[in-house]
């Protein structure tokens, strides 16, 4: 496949299929609860409805209030171009793209926090403070995983790093499992999933991400929801690619990748149905566990060869 087709496949699949993931998660949760549940494409309906609505803005807010939703869409779209989905390489892959990948989400986080503080509400302030705090540990855990994979693959580009890791489970299963554990926790925390955060409650005092976007409505809220589904897709793809031993034949790899994403969504749904939300103080402990896991994975690989 040439590069243009690859870019189109990446962008097309991501933009079109990302809202399906939350739908799948909710369907699994409904099955566990014995309900029929909303259709898997409920988020598409929601987005279409929100885009038609008139937004309500707080008089306290400035333009910074819109920067959060905008960045939360732009960052994952740019990040997905650095990530190999079903192929061996990313459309925009280059040495050091792993760092740009992580920092794009940092940029979105900065603007989301500002948008939250822009409302002058105690709830949003609370969410922003928690987000800024937990990000310290989550980012460190993500980077320790990247360091481990970089050591393992001898590259600083996500394409070769993830491909080598996917194929290396037999030779370095232990350290890779530690990295996977670290990234799985980061994935759940960053996407505000149970057991760390609950995307469904409206108890502001217990939430992190959701509480930061309480004041958004109409098209900006649509951007927030769409951005969240994109983030779920992109970080999910990172975890799925770490596990998949792809061999380089595209008509096997792409379906395998998509199947992996569906399985991931199902796993998230099962976790959300069978676990309770952790106490807030436990979230940082879980993140420290993720960080330690990442550090040990890295050290094992550093000392191995």
């Amino acid at each position, binding site marked *: 496949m040439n590069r243009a087709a690859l870019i189109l496949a990446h962008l097309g699949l991501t933009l079109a299929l990302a809202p399906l993931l939350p739908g799948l998660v909710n369907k699994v949760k409904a099955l566990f609860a014995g309900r029929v549940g909303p259709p898997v494409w409920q988020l598409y309906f929601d987005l279409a409805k929100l885009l038609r609505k*008139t*937004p*309500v*803005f*707080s*008089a*306290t807010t*400035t333009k*910074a209030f*819109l920067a959060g939703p905008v960045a939360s*869409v*732009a960052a994952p*779209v*740019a990040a997905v171009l650095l990530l190999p989905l079903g192929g061996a390489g990313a459309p*925009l892959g*280059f040495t*050091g*793209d*792993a*760092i740009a990948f992580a*920092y*794009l989400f*940092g*940029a979105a*986080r*900065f603007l989301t*926090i*500002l948008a*939250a*503080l*822009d*409302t*002058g*509400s*105690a*709830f949003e*302030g609370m969410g*922003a*403070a928690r987000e*800024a*705090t937990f990000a*310290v540990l989550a*980012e*460190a855990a993500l*980077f*320790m995983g990247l*360091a481990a994979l*970089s*050591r393992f693959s*001898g*590259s*600083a580009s996500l394409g070769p790093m993830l491909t080598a890791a996917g194929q290396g489970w037999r030779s370095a299963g232990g350290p890779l499992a530690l990295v996977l554990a670290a990234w799985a926790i980061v994935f759940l925390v960053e996407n505000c999933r149970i057991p760390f955060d609950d995307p469904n409650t409206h108890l502001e005092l217990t939430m992190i991400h959701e509480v930061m976007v309480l004041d958004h*409505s*109409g*098209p*900006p809220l649509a*951007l927030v929801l769409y951005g969240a589904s994109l983030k779920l897709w992109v970080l999910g793809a990172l975890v799925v690619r770490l596990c998949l031993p792809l061999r380089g034949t595209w008509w096997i790899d792409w379906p395998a990748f998509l199947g992996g994403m569906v399985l991931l969504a199902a796993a998230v749904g099962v976790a959300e149905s069978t676990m309770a939300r952790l106490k807030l103080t436990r979230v940082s402990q879980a993140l420290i566990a993720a960080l330690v896991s990442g550090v040990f994975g*890295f050290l094992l690989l*550093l000392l191995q*060869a």
Partner: protein
Amino acid sequence: MLLPALYICALLLASLSGVPGILGARSGGRIASWMLAGAALCGLGVAGAVLYGGLTWRLDLPWGLPGARLALAGDPVGSFILAPVVLVAACLSLYAEGYWDGPAHAATAPRLRLCFGLAMGALVLLTAAANAILFLFAWETMALMGFLMVSAQDQDAAVREAGWIYLVASHTGVLLLFAGFSLLAAGAGGYALGPLPAGFAATPAGTWAFLLLLAGFALKAGIGPLHVWLPGAHAAAPSHVSAALSGLLLKMGLLGMFRLLAWFPDPPLWWGGLLTGVGAVSGVMALAFALAQKDLKRMLAYSSIENVSIVALGLGLALAGKSLGLPALVVLGGAGALFHLLSHALLKPLLFMGAGAVLHATGTRDMERLGGLAHAMPRTALLFTAGAFGLCGLPPLNAFAGEWILYLGAFKGVQAGGWTGAGIVLAALALMGALALAAFTRACGIVFLGSPRSDLPLQAHEPPPSMVRPMALLLGLCILLGLAPLLLAPALQRAVATLAPGLPPLRSLAPLGHLSLVTAAALPVAWAAWAIATRNPGRRAVTWDCGYARPTARIQYTASSFSQMLTEAFRWLLVPIERLPRVQGLFPRNARFQVQTPDTLLDRGLKPGAQFLGWALSRLRFLQAGHLPIYLLYVVLTLAALLAWTLA
């Protein structure tokens, strides 16, 4: 001959920029700005010719002092730092016209302008000084002018104390440098600054010279634990002076460290490890303190410590690369360090100017009393926030490109294995990035967004254009370098080439052009999303507040509560002074909660230590009774002791 002439022009214009004002010229501020703008043009011309044209220049004139020569050399490293020095100096002078030249500061303005000009001249001289005595001369001028500038408002006791600590720290640094350069001169056979013979690093004299010079330079750069002078001085100085201190003066310490790396051909590995370890600890520590500050300028000062620590991490990588024989590490560490140095030299003055505008408009630096300033000062808010965003190392601004090169260096070191320092650099960079994000979202969000937390922001106003324009110019440069970091590649390549012979090209190691592609992918999406978000202007209402009838601004998150979880985690380091309210009875009275975080090392270590030393030495005062016979007795006793010692 053209380049030395241009350089001398820049030097003289900068040094003398304050003279017309002190001689009584009516528009002294404007004349100073024009002279510094001229200096900027000359300086940028010289730097451009060296960095992009590949030219070099030398000037060597005799000087009466023993060992000293007026030796100047335009090398790529000095030129790389000369460029931001002259540019930012001109911007700050323009800013000072609006900030300090009003009737409120009529008495201090001409003096301050004179010191500012001389300090900038000293900086220009430092970038090219090729003789140790000349270097120390310029260094001392810089330190003294810095002291005079910091204590501009010396009617305030806090300012006097900050100035005093700055002076003591600077002179300790000069002493260390003097000792270090003397050892170098013994090893290299002269006071000319340049490459040292192979094998010198392994001798005790070489090790001591390295450690002394490193400590002297680190003291000026403000790398922890030698940072004690920095937060107080930055908070006490007028804002444009804080900007010059943080953006430019600190960089001279880093310039010295970079030069030091280049002089030793065969450094042992533990030197790189030392630099890396110190950088990692100092950076994380500085951010912990930054998160606990309520004073906006003190917070920016701690952030400066963090940023010089990032540069130190890069220098540590380069030094280790030299010891390990990994040229890729030398290139990436050196280039990343220089790139980040430049980013910080442009961004931090921008932030200090923004903080100055806030201080100018509201009269306070206390973040807890601010809030909602974006409504009254939209341009300042935008410029400050953009600068803060950049300084967190986020794409697409310039600091990201520099940190990205450093990360690449760390990844290279990790891949090569054998040296855990690379892993430490990587972990420290990731930790600092996230902590800096917390510190700067806190500063921007609490100061500019939300509702006003006191009456002060209500009377705020946008600063005059002469204060806004320099900020806009610096931000424009940062955006340009962020969108197209490749522009800097040839200059970085030439500067890094001074570190070691036979280095691979930067382009082959760090595809800087691809960063522009990522930006090019993100910006159209952001633009489209912005169009969607703003298509419907919407309705205005109040912030959703759970249906409370009478919300007040006091229920907002404050600077302290925003960072509370993080400062709690660093409690062992910060040791805050807290006054907790005591709630008693069924109808408790109004309670107050107060928390304050002094610099642990300075206020709990050095100051009590110095006081104890003063007290202990005062016990010896009885020796100085003031009677002549007793002093004669001392002389006789000393002579007798010496006689006994020689005979025995």
